[in-house]
């Protein structure tokens, strides 16, 4: 068990390394010169060259990369040249926005998918099941940017229930904050529904199909008790692990929604970093989000391992 844990940890670290490495190499190839951007259109070539030297842009790429890794290991995430601010500080400023949107949307998605998925599985092929499957298919196919525009038009512009764009921080009141993130969260939730209903429905169907359900019925348990006591319990593991993974992934999946609703979150920061070629900033964001994803997947793997002894001996658990 311990050996497996160590192996899992090592492979998680390897993934983080690969991700940061890919980011770095890819960004090096993007056209654009950070020094030129700092100085603007009026700078002389000599000035730009001098600043390049000062910013360490003239070092070979692997030295730049090692410098960055070394900094992160010492707790220094570097300075974003666009904002002139420590990357860690920037992340901490933006995280609450993205996190609250991600959390609210997951909450909506989990509740809706649990209700719809369970009912759909219990009443397979009923109109309700068809509804659930329609929502599932639409959730997976609706372009988030289109949905966001339609929501904005109808709920914000036409009905006036929500602000059109923008973010109200929690400090200005819980209600105001909730209203400002409600529409973006719903848009994201509908995307997540596509995945979650599928999982809930299929794991519930599998559970209902299990031998223990039959034996419970044979023992004389009423159907409802059997469903609550056995089926729900065994069906809940997969959706929970998936929800955790999706929540972690959502932290980086909000680019489009944040752009449309003008939320100052990590997604917009990421877009700025790509567009302005802010390598340090982008590296920090990518490392942060992948760390979250890898961490969650590690934890869920461990839980699954603990619950299901069969996996311990087999191949590595495929965590998706």
């Amino acid at each position, binding site marked *: 068990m311990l050996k497996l844990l160590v192996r899992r940890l090592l*492979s998680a670290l390897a993934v983080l390394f690969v991700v940061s490495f890919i980011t770095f190499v890819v960004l090096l190839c993007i056209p654009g010169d950070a020094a030129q951007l700092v100085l603007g259109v009026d700078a002389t070539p000599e000035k730009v060259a001098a600043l390049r030297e000062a910013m360490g842009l003239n070092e070979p790429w692997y030295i730049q990369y090692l410098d960055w890794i070394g900094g992160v290991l010492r707790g220094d995430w570097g300075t974003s040249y666009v904002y002139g601010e420590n990357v860690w500080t920037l992340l901490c400023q933006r995280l609450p926005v993205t996190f609250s949107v991600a959390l609210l949307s997951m909450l909506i998605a989990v509740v809706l998918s649990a209700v719809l998925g369970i009912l759909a599985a219990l009443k397979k092929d009923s109109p309700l099941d068809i509804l659930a499957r329609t929502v599932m298919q639409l959730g997976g*196919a609706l372009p988030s940017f*289109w949905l966001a525009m339609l929501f904005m038009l109808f709920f914000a512009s036409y009905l006036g229930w929500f602000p*059109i764009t923008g973010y109200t921080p929690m400090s200005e009141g819980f209600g105001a904050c909730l209203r400002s993130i409600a529409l973006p969260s719903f848009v994201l939730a509908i995307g997540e529904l596509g995945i979650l209903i599928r999982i809930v429905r299929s794991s519930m169907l599998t559970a209902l199909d299990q031998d223990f359900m039959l034996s419970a019925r044979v023992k004389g348990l009423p159907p409802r008790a059997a469903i609550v006591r056995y089926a729900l319990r065994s069906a809940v593991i997969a959706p929970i692990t998936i929800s955790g993974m999706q929540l972690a992934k959502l932290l980086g999946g909000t680019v489009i929604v944040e752009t449309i609703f003008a939320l100052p979150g990590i997604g917009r920061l990421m877009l700025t970093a790509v567009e302005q070629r802010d390598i340090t900033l982008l590296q920090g964001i990518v490392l942060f989000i992948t760390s979250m994803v890898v961490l969650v997947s590690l934890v869920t793997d461990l839980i699954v391992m603990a619950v299901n002894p069969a996996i311990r001996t087999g191949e590595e658990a495929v965590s998706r």
Partner: protein
Amino acid sequence: MKRKRSFSLTAGAVMVALIVAMCLVSFVWMPMDPEKMDTANRFALPGAQHLLGTDQFGRDVLSRIMEASRWALLVGVCSVTAGAAAGSAIGAAAAMLGGVLRSVIMRFIDGMMSFPGILLAMMLVTVLGKGILGSVLAIGIFMIPTFSRLVYSMVLENKQRLYVKAAQSYGCSRRRIVLHHMLPDMLPRLITQFSSSIGGAVLLESSLSFLGLGIQPPTPSWGMMLSEARQFVLSYPYIAVAPGVVLLITVLGFNLLGDGLNDRFVKRSSR
């Protein structure tokens, strides 16, 4: 039950057929030149002259949607084909090779999969260049991990099977085993994945275009049309409707088709 199963397949096939038909028709006939501006006539309401109205430059929206379907399908099919070919090769190689190399390859694939959202595609397209070729390559690379993971696990599974052991025992090369013995068994799941991936690729392409990183104007793309409409959506809501509906039908069609195929060929054969 059987009736429902075929519903996804039928609905998906119909939707895909519709879009493909629209694309084919666009080569023969379009109501107007999709790139011709008519600035005196912009934001025209849908009507007899312009069935779906005109955009901010007075271009005919229906014609633009029709032309965009060509690029959507082209990018979708090409990128997924490329991604599936490369991804499957990588997955199969990793599974057959084993050892350190396998770990390295699979960690790399894990790494690619761990990128948040569409960031990987965004970065790739910035490097590879925008436009159609850049989009195809970026989305193709984006698709690699899905297919390598799938093929990797299928090959590992099949490796334990007797027929592979038998083939190995009479000295078949590893390449031959994968291509001649395993492939027929894996094909249904690959085709299923292929269909749903096209839906994903079309969606990804439109997202990139929406962010201004995909197909470049004046060539129309559904994502770009929506991004242009966004500037004026509060004053002229109708210009945001049609491109979104067509995009939805396309993605939904390929997803349903994938699901339908999965139900018909994969689940049945595995049970």
